[in-house]
């Protein structure tokens, strides 16, 4: 089978061998969970419980606050202990509901729809919204919004993203191997909702077992096909995956649905299946715990709100020479100050611990125009020049070089011999450019 890909990209050390053979293990329900109200892109959810309330597993505890927002559910059976500011792996600190476990694990009863084909698409989207499903790949965009394209946009393809191009992470791989059937059912549901002709599952070449399992099950489904994509970072970035599989290019500033495609992570597909067919809100997820500074590694199914500390401990604990702990993958993840009381969110796909050797900090030197970053940029930008403009506060010039197209994948910073923190400059620049353009728009409207 042909291995598909896009232009550019890098080959960082994969690190998957550390945990790819560890099958998914359901972790014991924690004594206490910290459930932040911001676990998705968009407005934080509004809490609908009060301190002292008793809640069941799967009970809604906070409500979506605007169109782009998501419901939050309790992940355990217990009692609301506090509502306030708590640590958050991405935002530093954010409002959260703390629930203390009581006896048992009593689930709230939800309607199960096994025959989803006979149900209206709108109804299915409503259920998905109700169950608080968001993108599980890390971006955490509310799934219901993504599945409601404007009526004038025809969707041809649904792509399930099983690339998992971030090094070290293996949770999607494990899901594809162990929850194969559920994931494919999820894809069918998505295809029904957006009325797509064809479904693809894009998987990187380095996951032969996952590919085999899914291929076996798809054999008799004529409108679903497995597409093998090259093991290359960032193969799992939405736009790059679409390019590889369909050869369509999402325009600058556009969305996949502008080219008739909807992309969902395999984990999201599983969550959709569980929400519709099993009536289960999004209260658990698969997390890889790995890295050279771990005594042992694991792939867990954990309740949302469990803590990093607990996961690390259950996986085998940290080595003494740990230097860095990351939420997410090593390329785009966020380094953590501490792991105590830091909760696992809907979008946390991995907890990685690294030693000094892997992450050594280097001094920034002047750019020598080696153009490594230009050669590998998957968005075909000129990072080195954009960074020079940003350093000199020439944001309009940076805008001309399409800085806003940057997906912050970090490939440029990975290859840079001068160790320039390019992603950081990109973030600053994008922010400034956005401000300038908003201001310009405002002035024009006047």
């Amino acid at each position: 089978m042909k291995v598909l890909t896009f232009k550019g990209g890098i080959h960082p050390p994969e690190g998957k061998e550390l945990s790819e053979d560890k099958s998914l293990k359901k972790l014991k329900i924690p004594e206490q969970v910290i459930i932040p109200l911001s676990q998705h892109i968009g407005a934080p959810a509004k809490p609908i419980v009060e301190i002292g309330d008793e809640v069941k597993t799967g009970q809604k505890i906070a409500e979506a606050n605007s169109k782009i927002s998501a419901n939050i559910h309790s992940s355990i059976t217990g009692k609301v202990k506090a509502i306030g500011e708590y640590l958050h792996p991405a935002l530093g600190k954010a409002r959260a509901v703390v629930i203390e476990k009581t006896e048992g694990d009593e689930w709230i009863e939800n309607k199960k729809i096994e025959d989803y084909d006979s149900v209206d698409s709108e109804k299915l989207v409503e259920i998905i919204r109700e169950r608080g499903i968001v993108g599980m790949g890390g971006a955490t965009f509310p799934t219901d919004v993504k599945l409601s394209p404007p009526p004038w946009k025809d969707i041809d393809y649904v792509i399930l993203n099983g690339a998992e191009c971030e090094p070290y992470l293996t949770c999607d791989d494990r899901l594809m191997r162990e929850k194969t059937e559920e994931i494919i059912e999820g894809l069918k549901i998505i295809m029904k909702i957006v009325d797509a002709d064809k479904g693809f599952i894009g998987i990187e070449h380095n996951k032969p077992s996952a590919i085999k399992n899914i291929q076996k099950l798809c054999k008799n489904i004529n409108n679903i096909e497995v597409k093998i994509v090259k093991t290359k970072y960032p193969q799992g970035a939405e736009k790059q995956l679409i390019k590889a599989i369909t050869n369509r290019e999402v325009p600058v500033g556009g969305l996949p649905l502008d080219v008739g495609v909807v992309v969902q992570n395999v984990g999201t597909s599983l969550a959709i299946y569980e929400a519709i067919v099993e009536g289960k809100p999004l209260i658990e997820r698969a997390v890889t715990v790995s890295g050279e500074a771990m005594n042992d590694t694991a792939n867990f199914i954990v309740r949302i709100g469990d803590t990093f500390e607990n996961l690390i401990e259950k996986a085998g604990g940290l080595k003494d020479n740990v230097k860095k702990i990351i939420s997410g993958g090593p390329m785009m993840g966020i380094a953590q100050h501490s792991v105590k009381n830091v909760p696992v969110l809907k979008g946390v796909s991995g907890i990685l611990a690294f030693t000094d050797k892997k992450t050594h900090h280097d001094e920034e030197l002047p750019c020598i125009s080696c153009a490594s970053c230009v050669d590998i940029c998957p968005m075909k930008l000129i990072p080195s020049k954009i960074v020079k403009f940003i350093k000199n506060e020439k944001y309009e010039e940076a805008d001309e070089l399409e800085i806003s197209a940057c997906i912050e994948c970090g490939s440029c910073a990975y290859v840079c011999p001068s160790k320039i923190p390019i992603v950081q400059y990109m973030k600053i620049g994008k922010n400034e450019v956005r401000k300038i353009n908003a201001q310009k728009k405002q002035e024009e409207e006047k």
Partner: protein
Amino acid sequence: MDKNLQVSISPHLKQNISVQKVMWLVVLALLPAFIHTIILFGIRTIWVTLTAIITAIISEALMQLLFNKKITITDGSAVVTGMLLTFNVPPTIALWKVALASAFGIIIAKQLFGGLGYNIFNPALVGRAFLVASYPVAITSGWVKPTGGFLSISQRAAESIKTAGNQTAAKLVDTVSSATPLTALKEVRKAASNPEIHDTAVNLWDKLYSFDFVENAFLGKIGGCLGETTAITILIGGLFLMILKIIDWRIPLAYIGTLGVLTWIFGGHNGLFTGNPFFHIFTGGLMLGAFFMATDMVTSPLTKSGRWIFAISLGLLTFIIRMWGGYPEGVSYSILIMNIFVPLIDRYTVPKAFGGGQE
């Protein structure tokens, strides 16, 4: 359990490459050619090289002191400049002239522009051009024969050309056998238009274009600057850098290819397509220029399309200067001239961003 955790922006993995590593790899790639020069011209080339390197380092440090900047002489870039300059001078050059050129290159072409990464021109080539402007005689004459070789054609080959009492022809043979190959070619081409010595000139021309000669040129058994007599070892070093992806293969390929094709078409005396491209590829500074000078990261274009434009223009310019210019060799000036155009090339070869082509 909280340790002193490090917090920094993503990505948390970095490739094992650094500016220092790049520079020292270039130095490493130049070592075979350096050893080759010692074999060809003796111990003296060591002193020439050391002079260039030490002066480069001292100049860099002094300027950084003067401008209150951090001293960065360990990054290896000054060493690279010093070494490259050595390959751009004749083996007999006075040491103080090498030092002068090295200092000029580092101070004027590099440090005044802000140091590493900001220079517009290749410092080593600026050093050479300064020498050519200041001491034209020192850099274009006084050639010595390399061990086991000759300057352009061997004494025997020269004697085999019967001049039959024709004094002008005899003089031409003398001139040619005491010049570097490209200078010899220039003399021969000029002489070919003189009917009186046309036959002799054509005879010499054929000798230069013969397989034997090109083989000798490839092995370095000819006269010239240190980098002009070490084609084979420079090629080895260049391929080494190419395999490590320190330099982009496009630049040497397009540069050498363009010059080869042009000289093949227009470089002969029997009409079109009678030139010997290999003569032009292995004589002069082309190997050094194409692999080590034109590929200098700081002073070459950023984009692939830009590098094609850059390298093809280099081939064209070198061809023009070798054919019609005042200098026998045009590699160093071609690169300096194209250095001027790099900012323009960079500006007008910005690729469309991903998804930018469909709107």
